[in-house]
């Protein structure tokens, strides 16, 4: 069965249209709200197209719509176009959905923004959605890499949207450079892979791999390089440090880019090249261990944060680690399932946090408290998101999380499995810590009269909450058959897995409840009991210090050495030579008297020397 790629292409091009119109028609952009509505209209059209594309490509239908792009000696080096299949269209739908909802939400969230700046925001948003869809639908590595860089650029532009804030500008640059470090690996990997296989095309390469025609020598290096790109983009240890800082951007941006879509691009890349990674089990083992370690590290960091967005950011890092571990265990479909549900409920959590920040005008948890009575709607949707993330049955994240745990167990990775169980406990703990501190408990002395958000913000929240819950209930009823990939379950989870996972989550919730709601356990006692770990977590496990040290000592030191050599050795030699030339020229100048007769002396002298030379030397 073949599908039809036009709908996928339309979804992609609608965002491109929105971006081009907003970028080129400056008067429309400066109007602000009309520009926003235009962009939202395109996003809505794109969502409809994406849904149609998904419907056309359910099952194993696949369609390619490509144009030749880089011609080279009788063949085509690279193409552009769309590769629509079950995986890419469902991801496309997620991107289109979250992009559309976030654009609607931003209308309320950024209502205080001046009109030109709002227009700029929507131009960036459209560019991002276009690039992300281009990445998702990429039929070859070249288009994938270009879009990969484009989403990185949009991430930079949107983190630094409030560029007059120094922290925001710094965070934008940091995110850009750190992801770029991984992207270098990706580029090297792609080029090496091209040398090995002779093609950039994903489908052709898949055929090569299936026929066993791809040489295996050196393939581990290639997949590791590609994985490096994913490490940067998906914020895996040790390149995870940019994501928490990226929270300086507007909250809807964090929801779209740094929770639901862009940061999952790394996971998506590994999913798309799953068959390639399957040839290199050693790299997969690294993926799994790094993923599990990242998950635990970030979860423990999330427990020590006071900024609500940072908690969510570390939670995103942690969940990305979850997905990576599943891929490392060899069951990419499980990771992709979690990617989709996570996209829904993490966008919901960020947008909910945005509503809270909008209401209390601050990010800090101690400034909040008792919001449940003031903001009942927000509380309900945030709770839905939290329960999904914690993995409570009937909610969105439950099945996908259990799927990952089952996959890791089935993959025989006991170590990462234990780490992930600890993360499940910690996840429930830190999320309910946020819930109890922000929505329950006592309000702070300084009261800002918070209230539920306006309609434009509430609607996306309710839609996402309904979807998070709906997905959970759907799969609870229909059984955990994934709507993509192999219809058969690739593995069977042991019977004790589900109770254990739920138990860990409930344990985490209980501990948070006892600590922050009942105050049966003093938070300070808990903190001092975990003294060194807490201290380390507050310093972010010295990862930022490490990078600064490497940068300050290594890179800057090396640059200073090079600078010294250039300034004193290279320039010194040149200065000496030029000074010598100048002085000797100055001295020799006096030879030129300007008197004609002196030159005649010179001619006579020269002639005499010539004659003598002819007489004696040549005789």
């Amino acid at each position: 069965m073949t599908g039809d790629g036009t709908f996928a292409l339309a979804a992609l091009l609608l965002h491109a249209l929105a971006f081009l119109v907003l970028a080129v028609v400056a008067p429309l952009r400066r109007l602000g709200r009309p520009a926003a509505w235009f962009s939202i209209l395109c996003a809505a059209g794109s969502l409809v197209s994406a849904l149609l594309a998904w419907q056309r490509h359910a099952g194993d239908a696949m369609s390619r719509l490509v144009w030749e792009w880089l011609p080279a000696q009788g063949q085509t080096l690279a193409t552009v176009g769309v590769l629509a299949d079950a995986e890419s269209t469902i991801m496309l739908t997620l991107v289109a959905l979250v992009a559309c909802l976030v654009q609607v939400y931003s209308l309320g969230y950024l209502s205080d923004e001046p009109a030109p700046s709002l227009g700029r925001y929507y131009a960036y948003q459209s560019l991002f959605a276009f690039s992300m869809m281009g990445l998702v639908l990429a039929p070859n590595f070249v288009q994938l890499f270009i879009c990969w860089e484009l989403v990185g650029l949009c991430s930079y532009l949107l983190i630094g949207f409030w560029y007059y804030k120094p922290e925001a500008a710094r965070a934008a640059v940091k995110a850009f450079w750190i992801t770029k470090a991984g992207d270098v690996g990706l580029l090297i990997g792609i080029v090496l892979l091209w040398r090995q296989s002779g093609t950039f095309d994903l489908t052709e390469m898949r055929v090569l791999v299936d026929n066993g025609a791809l040489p295996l020598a050196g393939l581990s290096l290639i997949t590791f390089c590609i994985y490096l790109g994913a490490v940067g983009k998906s914020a895996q240890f040790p390149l995870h440090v940019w994501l928490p800082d990226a929270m300086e951007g507007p909250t809807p941006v964090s929801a779209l880019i740094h929770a639901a879509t862009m940061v999952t691009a790394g996971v998506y890349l590994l999913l798309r090249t799953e068959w390639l990674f399957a040839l290199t089990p050693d790299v997969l083992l690294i993926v799994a261990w790094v993923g599990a370690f990242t998950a635990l590290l970030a979860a423990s960091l999330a427990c020590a944060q006071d900024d609500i967005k940072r908690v969510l950011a570390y939670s995103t890092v942690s969940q990305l680690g979850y997905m990576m571990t599943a891929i490392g265990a060899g069951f990419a479909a499980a990771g992709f399932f979690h990617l989709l549900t996570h996209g829904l409920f993490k966008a919901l959590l960020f947008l909910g946090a945005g509503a809270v920040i909008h209401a209390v005008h601050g990010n800090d948890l101690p400034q909040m408290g008792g919001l449940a009575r003031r903001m009942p709607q927000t509380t309900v949707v945030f709770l839905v998101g939290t329960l999904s993330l914690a993995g409570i049955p009937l909610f969105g994240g439950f099945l996908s999380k259990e799927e990952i745990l089952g996959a890791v167990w089935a993959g025989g990775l006991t170590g990462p499995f234990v780490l992930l169980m600890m993360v499940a406990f910690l996840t429930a703990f830190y999320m309910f810590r946020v819930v109890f501190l922000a929505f329950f408990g006592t309000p702070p002395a300084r009261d800002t009269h918070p209230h539920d958000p306006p309609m434009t913000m509430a609607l996306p929240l309710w839609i996402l909450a309904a979807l998070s819950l709906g997905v959970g209930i759907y799969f609870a009823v229909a059984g955990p058959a994934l709507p993509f990939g192999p219809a058969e379950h690739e593995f069977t989870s042991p019977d004790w897995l589900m109770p254990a996972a739920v138990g860990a989550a409930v344990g985490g919730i209980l501990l948070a409840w006892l600590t922050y709601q009942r105050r049966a356990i003093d938070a300070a006692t808990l903190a001092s009991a975990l003294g060194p770990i807490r201290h380390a977590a507050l310093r972010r496990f010295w990862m930022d210090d490490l990078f600064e040290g490497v940068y300050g000592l290594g890179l800057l030191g090396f640059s200073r050495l090079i600078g010294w050599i250039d300034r004193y050795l290279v320039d010194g030699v040149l200065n000496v030579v030029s000074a010598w030339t100048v002085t000797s020229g100055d001295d020799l100048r006096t030879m030129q008297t300007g008197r004609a007769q002196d030159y005649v002396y010179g001619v006579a002298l020269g002639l005499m020397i010539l004659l003598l030379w002819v007489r004696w030397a040549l005789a």
Partner: protein
Amino acid sequence: MGLQAYLTLAAVVFCIGFFGVITRRNTIGILLGIELMLNSVNINLVAFARFSGDVTGMVFTVFTICITVAEAALGLAIVILLFRVRRTVTADHLDLLKG
């Protein structure tokens, strides 16, 4: 008188001319020196022509004299122009090319 006497005369005239070229401070004097040097060459040519019985040297001398006339006219014109511009014809003062 043999060839040697003519050659000696030519050498003496050449040296007198050359001496004038290097020692005269007046530009017109220098030009006169140059004329002397050229004429010494003419003496050489005529002497060789006479003693070898070949008229080529004499014909050549006629050409040399013609060209010398032109050269003298040109040189004097330059000197007159120099005088108009610089108000001097003393060679020592004409040192615009001094480094």
